[in-house]
């Protein structure tokens, strides 16, 4: 069995995660975790839709920010995709997508403040980096044949528009629509740092233990995402896109002097700002690295590895829920509902909920990351098993699962998992804002202390770590010859 590289890789990752478990801080620290969990589910079962007058407005803002952010991101991403073959562009894109939406929001909050631009750019910038990469991959794989048939002298722009784009159009449209769903999730969590989206009210209700109010908000959010195929019609899209900017709310006016100040003063390391010598700069930097960056990196990596393996295990357990090979339609429908809920809930919100219920340790984060990511991968490979036709006399039940299906989907399962590795790490870092000691914790602390120079160093380190894991993930996927479609 160990002769297979995929099996060897799996066991190496499993071993790393088990070692991680030995050093990780895994605990339930609340006295009555199950009682609180029960109250939470009771709240979801008895939702109160009339708690805040602002609830519908918040939902509208959530959609508006998602539309404007994703639209802007896709336009910029498309333009970047055209020049993606240049190394500096690729590095630039890798960098902007390595920084999480919430970090971008925290940065823009410092100089744009509570202006809609903060939320729009927080979504648009990282999304532009992702769109650039995916669009360029789609364009690259386009059939070159139509281009060759064009008469000589056709301008390259015309050739691109008439020979290349039509071939890629459907794929690009599908991916962009899929990204919009991700955009809704991103938009919702921006509320946690003060933008007027759903997260704003969700955080308030939750922290006050108003579970019925919070339950209503979660239900509205699920309905919004689950009904996307109904309201997101191609014909209506231009209407949405044109209308969205007018529903972002007014916020507060931008004071442009703040922008200049942020870039020329705030983020300059304090020893340089104060004109101290090289020694002081070194002392400052090593202080940031040793007391904040190193513990942050360690916790981020440990948590990521555990969450990655937990995600894998959960995906493998979850895919039969929606697979045609098991159970009847009733069971499959409830399986679908469970997986839709798991993958529609942003891991940040899941982690927030579980942290409130179980107290602070890495456990809520691991469970949240595994539920969300496992929901996504389980859904994808579950759907894939539905295209597999087995012999009529194939075994049933557990034998079918372990001897027929898992071996057949294992490679694409690993491909999805390694693809999501970097995404899991990006999320792990951001969960620090909730109080787990990953890099986000130290970024948040620096921002709370109004030390943006420190915050920027830590955000840069987080970005580099993500780029590193992304590269490693791609290397492993290439080594194992795994291919996948992007997910978010």
């Amino acid at each position, binding site marked *: 069995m160990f002769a297979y590289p995929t099996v060897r890789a799996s066991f190496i990752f499993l071993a790393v995660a088990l070692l991680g478990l030995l050093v990780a801080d895994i605990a339930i620290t*609340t006295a009555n975790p199950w009682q609180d969990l029960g109250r939470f589910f009771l709240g979801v079962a008895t939702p109160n839709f009339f708690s805040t007058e602002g609830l519908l407005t918040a939902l509208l803002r959530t959609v508006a920010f998602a539309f404007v952010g994703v639209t802007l991101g896709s336009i910029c991403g498309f333009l970047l995709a055209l020049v993606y073959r240049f190394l500096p562009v690729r590095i630039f894109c890798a960098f902007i997508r390595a920084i999480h939406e919430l970090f971008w929001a925290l940065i823009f909050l410092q100089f744009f403040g*509570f202006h809609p631009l903060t939320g729009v750019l927080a979504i648009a910038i990282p999304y532009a980096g992702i769109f650039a990469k995916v669009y360029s991959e789609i364009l690259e794989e386009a059939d070159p044949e139509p281009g060759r048939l064009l008469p000589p002298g056709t301008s390259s722009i015309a050739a691109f528009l008439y020979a290349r784009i039509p071939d890629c159009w459907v794929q690009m449209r599908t991916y962009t629509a899929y990204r919009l769903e991700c955009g809704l999730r991103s938009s919702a969590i921006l509320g946690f740092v003060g933008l007027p989206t759903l997260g704003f009210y969700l955080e308030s209700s939750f922290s006050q233990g108003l579970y019925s109010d919070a339950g209503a908000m979660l239900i509205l959010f699920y309905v919004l995402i689950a009904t996307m195929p109904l309201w997101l019609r191609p014909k209506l899209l231009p209407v949405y896109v044109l209308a969205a900017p007018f529903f972002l709310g007014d916020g507060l006016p931008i004071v442009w002097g703040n922008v200049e100040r942020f870039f020329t003063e705030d983020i300059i390391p304090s020893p340089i700002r104060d004109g101290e010598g090289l020694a002081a700069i070194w002392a400052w930097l090593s202080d940031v690295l040793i007391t904040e960056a190193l513990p942050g990196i360690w916790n981020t990596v440990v948590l990521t590895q555990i969450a990655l393996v937990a995600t894998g295990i959960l995906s493998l357990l979850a895919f039969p829920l929606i697979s045609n090979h098991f159970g009847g339609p009733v069971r499959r429908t409830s399986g679908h509902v469970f997986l839709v809920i798991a993958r529609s809930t942003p891991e940040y919100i899941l982690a927030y909920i579980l942290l409130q219920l179980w107290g602070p340790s890495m456990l809520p984060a691991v469970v949240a990351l595994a539920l969300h990511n496992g929901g996504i991968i389980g859904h994808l490979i579950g759907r894939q098993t539905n295209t597999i036709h087995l012999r009529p006399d194939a075994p049933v039940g557990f034998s079918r699962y372990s001897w027929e299906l898992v071996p057949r989907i294992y490679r694409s399962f690993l491909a999805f998992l390694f693809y999501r590795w970097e995404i899991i790490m990006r999320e792990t870092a951001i969960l620090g804002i909730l109080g787990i000691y990953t890099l986000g914790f130290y970024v948040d602390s620096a921002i709370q202390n109004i030390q943006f120079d420190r915050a920027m160093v830590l955000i840069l380190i987080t970005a580099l770590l993500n780029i590193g894991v992304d590269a490693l993930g791609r290397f492993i996927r290439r080594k194992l010859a795994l291919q996948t479609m992007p997910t978010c």
Partner: protein
Amino acid sequence: MAISNLRKWLATGLLSLAAATTVQADTFVFTAIPDEDETKLVERFRGVADYLQEQLDVEVRYIPVKSYAAAVSAFRNNQVQLAWFGGLSGVQARRLVPGSEAIAQGVEDEAFETYFIANTSTGIQPADSLDELEDELRGKTFTFGSKGSTSGRLMPEFYIRDVFNEAPDSLFSRVGFSGNHTRTLRLVEAGTYEVGALNFQVWEKELENGNIDTDAVQVIWRTPTYPDYQWTIRGDVDERFGDGFKQKMTEALLNLDDPALLESFPRSGFIPASNDDYEPIRATAENIGILD
């Protein structure tokens, strides 16, 4: 099809920028640090906004924020002109905005206190001095309030370091930041953390309203007093809202005597304050490295 869509998208992008730069010029905006449950804050400060609007003849708007730093940043960025800050956030804000002034504080803020509270299951008994509690506290779990809080972070951390000569995360087995005082109270009451530190006014008010299960949580130590909350205003408000605006604002705050509004703070009234009153807070913050 591709081109027409692209054109639509571009037009939208420009529109969104245009829509986003709409400015409302003459609204006076204020905020407050989110130190308590949000519904309470909104109720409290909407009342204050109405009162100020009536007194000052300008449109006054309160905006809620999600963190202490967000309040400081909004003040610094001139998106808000007045803020109800804690001792530390006020010092941070006034350092960042030259010319800004502390104009009023609550009567109780001259001599504010932090209460250390413990879940009764720990068996920790109240003590007169913190060093008597060393054995009981060691290895327990502990929560501060917000990272930027004076009564929930700065002063308790200062006394922990001062008395035990070590950092909180070496004395306690687990150190957390609950986010606000009400939350600290709930977490220690529920046993999520064994010990916590919070604003004494929040404790007293919740106790008076019967919202504390005194069988589950009790006060174990009270810090010496220090100056805390205050209203801080930007130095450039006179230029923007007319001569004497700052003076009028100060008077309006000092004259606030609506018992329902005061009760929501909870303060018995507001008295004059000055930047110098907060010198001890600045020194303490520098001492433990929160301020450079």
